[in-house]
Structures are given as C-alpha cells and as structure tokens.
C-alpha cells in the first residue's frame, strides 16, 4: 500500500511553496513513498510513555535585556533585495 499519493505530494508541494511538474510529482511520489515506508519502522517501538526530545540541552526560556543596538543599515539591506522601492521590498501583486 502506498503511504503517499500523487495528489498528496502535489498538496504538500503547494504547502511548501514549490511548483512541481507532473514528471517531478511522479518522481517525488515514488521517492517520498519509499522514505515514509522506511520511516514507519519507528512504529515497532512502543513510545506511549516516552517524552519527546525537542532539544538536547537543558535550556529553559533564554532571556536577554531588551536593549536596542545598532545592526544593519537599511540601505545595505535593500541592496541585497531582488527589487525594492522607497526603502521597501517590492513584490508582485499579493491579491489576484
């Protein structure tokens, strides 16, 4: 039984903001299905009482003083952008 359908792959690609062709969808469906099938070996383990690990160090909330400090110059930041105008990032229309 396949773990992920071509339709689901297309849905996931959309969620991930990736445009994929039909051929790519076929390829990724096969490859992701293999990987997910492989990952299902984790179900051999009973983890009902196991705490998940998000982080290996015993860190709690890390706080610092909320003090402004000098960082990058706005003009330099804009110069790295593909498009900008009047000190703001310029993008294609957001609404269709």
């Amino acid at each position: 039984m396949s773990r992920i359908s071509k339709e689901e792959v297309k849905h996931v690609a959309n969620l991930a903001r990736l445009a994929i062709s039909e051929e790519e969808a076929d390829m990724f469906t096969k490859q992701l299905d293999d990987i997910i099938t492989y990952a299902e070996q984790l179900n051999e383990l009973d983890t009902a009482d196991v705490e998940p690990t998000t982080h290996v160090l015993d860190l709690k909330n890390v706080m610092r003083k909320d003090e402004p400090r000098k960082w990058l110059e706005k003009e330099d930041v804009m110069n790295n952008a593909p498009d900008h105008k009047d000190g703001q990032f310029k993008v294609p229309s957001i609404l269709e």
Partner: protein
Amino acid sequence: MSLFDYTLKELQEKLHNKEVSVTDLVEESYQRIEAVDGEVKAFLTLNKEQALKQAEELDAARGKESAALFGLPIGVKDNIVTKGLRTTCASQFLDNFTDPLYDATVVEKLADAKSVTIGKLNMDEFAMGSSNENSSYYATRNPWNTDYVPGGSSGGSAAAVAAGEVFFSLGSDTGGSIRQPAAFCGVVGLKPTYGRVSRFGLVAFASSLDQIGPITRTVEDNAYLLEAISGHDTMDATSADVDVPKFTEALTGDVKGLKIAVPKEYLSEGVAPEVKEAVMSALRKYEDLGATWEEVSLPHSKYAVATYYLLASSEASANLARFDGVRYGVRTQNAETMLDMFKRSRSEGFGDEVKRRIMLGTFALSSGYYDAYYKKAQQVRTLIKNDFEQVLEDYDVIIGPTTPTPAFKVGEIVDDPLTMYANDILTIPVNLAGVPGISIPCGLSSDGLPIGLQIIGKHFDENTVYRTAHAFEQATDFHKQRPSLGGAQS
C-alpha cells in the same frame, strides 16, 4: 614537503622566528589551489585579493603578535556567512548573494584569532547530502582518488585540507557532515557538543542538530581551532553558557585506565570487513596503551536514520521557508502574483534533494500526520539519547567506525536517496544525542582510500574525546599519510 605538513605549533614558531611569512603561507595556499583544484573542485569562491592584503598587514606585526591562529590559511564552508564574501550554500538560490552584511560569530572569532580566510568551500546544497554530488555547481572529488566522492556535506572542507590547499577548515555537521567527509578524506574532523559553538550566521538546516566544527590534519590542531571558535554567544539562544576549557591541555598522550565502550551495532553486518578490521586493530592499539574496552549495546541505533530524516527534514522545511525571493537571493522573472513568485523562485533555486526534504518535512508536520511522524520521531530521539547517556555513565568514550564503508564512487548511489542516507548510520545518532564525536584516520582500504575511527564522548567532554584521539595519533602514523594528488606531495 608542503608548509601545511607542519603542525600549528611548528608554523607559529616559524612565523615568530621570521623563517616564513604569512604571505608565504597564503601564496602557498593559492598556488596549491591553482595546481590541484581543477581536479578536486573544493572551492566555490576565492578571497585572494583580501587574503593577500591581510597577509601583508599581519606580516608587519610578525614577532609581536600572538593571536591563537596567527597567519594560518583557513577555508570556510559556504553555509557560514562571511561579510562581503559570496555565500551560496552551493545553491542556485543564493548564486547572486555576493555581499552578505555580517559575519557569522565563528568568522568574527577567526578574525580575532588572526587566521586568513582563503575562500569558501563547496558542499552539498544547504548541507543536504553525503557525497557533495548535491552541490548545484560541481561535485568536489576525493583527493585520494578523484573517481571517488569526498563525502558530504562538508566535502569541500575535508578535501581542501586533505589536498593541502589550506592549513585547516571549518565545516558543519547535522548528521555526520564533518565526520563522514573527514573519514573519507583521511583528515581529523570534530562535531562539538551541541551548543559548544555558536550557530549565529550558520545558514540553518536543522537547528536542533547543526553544529560548526574544525577539520584539520592533526588532533592537536583540531583542539586549537575549537578553542578559538567555541563559547557562549548571546546571538544564538541555543549556545551553551559553559566554560571553554583549554582543549589542548587535555592532550597528555595518556589513556591508561580509559574505559572504552564498543557498540555491537556499530560493527554489525552492514560494516565492510576491512573497516571492521581497522577498528579492531585500533582497539588493540588502545589495549597496548593501557585502555580497556568492552562490547556494549546502543539498542535503538537501527532507528536513528529514520528518526533523523523525519526530524531534520521537518526542521529544514521551516528553516528554508525564508528563501522566498523577497529580501535576498535569486527571484524568478515575470511572476504575475506573489504566490507565483514564491513558488517559481523556490522551484528554480532549489535542487531535487532540497525539494525532497522540504516536502518530507512539510508532510511530517502537516495536519493529520504530525503525531504519527514528527512526534513519534521526537520520542524515538529520546530513546536514542538515553542509550548514549546510559553507556556513557559507565564508560569514558564510545568507539566505532565513522562510516560503514570507505568512500564510494562518484555517481554510484546518487539516484538512490535511501542508500545514500544509510551512509550516515553511524554518525547520525551522535547528533540526535547532542554529544561530541570525532573522526580520525585509522587505516587505508585495499583500494587506497582512508578509513575513519569515530570517538564519541559525554556532553561537553571534548577533552576526553581529544585525549583519546591524540593518544592513538601519537602511537600511529595514519595521520602522516598523504594522497599523491598532483604528484607534488610526499
């Protein structure tokens, strides 16, 4: 003989006594790159003009200056941000990112220590890969035999050191990306304890696993470089506020009474016989040196690869959302809407492996699958971490091979993601547990390719890892072996 065959201490003495200049070292670096990098393809971007200028300035201070890495040529993996020096992560998405606006914390620390950055090193795109074949530019080759891969993702970093193009380098390790290429290229590579080195300015792949670490020819030089780059950093909330010991002071050469654990899972059927033999021979050497070893079990080892790919890909899917074509990088042409612009920019900018992992991660985090995949993997991560903590309660270090086999041929498994992933089966658990691990050379295969010995220690106990590695190095000559690349090396 290359100047880079000397140790850091020897070179510092030569610089101090004015037997060599920083300019000599920097020129040697670029000459060697000129001679062999057409074959090795370790570098993506060179910093020649800037480096020669810096060399001249440092030469003026020779004799008086005593910074830790004074005048030594270093290569930096291309996912570590360097102010004003192109940083691409070997991705077409960042092909035009020629003017980064700040330095990573480790790069600032290198500047304080007065090393000279020679250039930026090739890698698998966004550090996703085990062979460097996922670089969107060209695949770095193994200096020992250019038909073979150098490993990955820090393949350029390991190959450049092995080929004598730089004195040492920085890599990053998320599931083995320093140790596996160090093993394949016959050099020394350490993944520090998670939190030891600041990740600020390391382009994030999987934030709970990524660590920057040193790649060198000798263990002592590795310890010097780690001393220079370690320490708490307020710019990285996950960097640990712990003391940085003088790692070099731990290198006593003495391992009498050291208790070594050898996981039986690390010498199982998937491990090539000659790799196993090299590790057994290393263990006999440790016995001669007065250490003892016993077989132990890390029972959840077989689940590490699946756990890793779910967790690392999930974190990557979130981290790589920042590449949207708005603030930096390459934007697609003539997109009608913003959504179209996002999708096309990302699809054109990312290679297949990056897309595959972003989609796997998005899937594992998506509604309806989160508990079954992402949370499940986090729980198994706890079991893997507990395995390590239990064994390391009773033993000083864990020893095994770094990789199941020596380097494989270019193109051999590039189309088979799962087989490629299995390469990292012995290094991945170390990242999941967050403990430090080193790979050092311990032999050559019948094909003349290096074999790596992996030494794993307790959280923040790089000292014992280094002491163990150094004692072996002192007692053997594997670290003195050199590839015959370009015919110039002894």
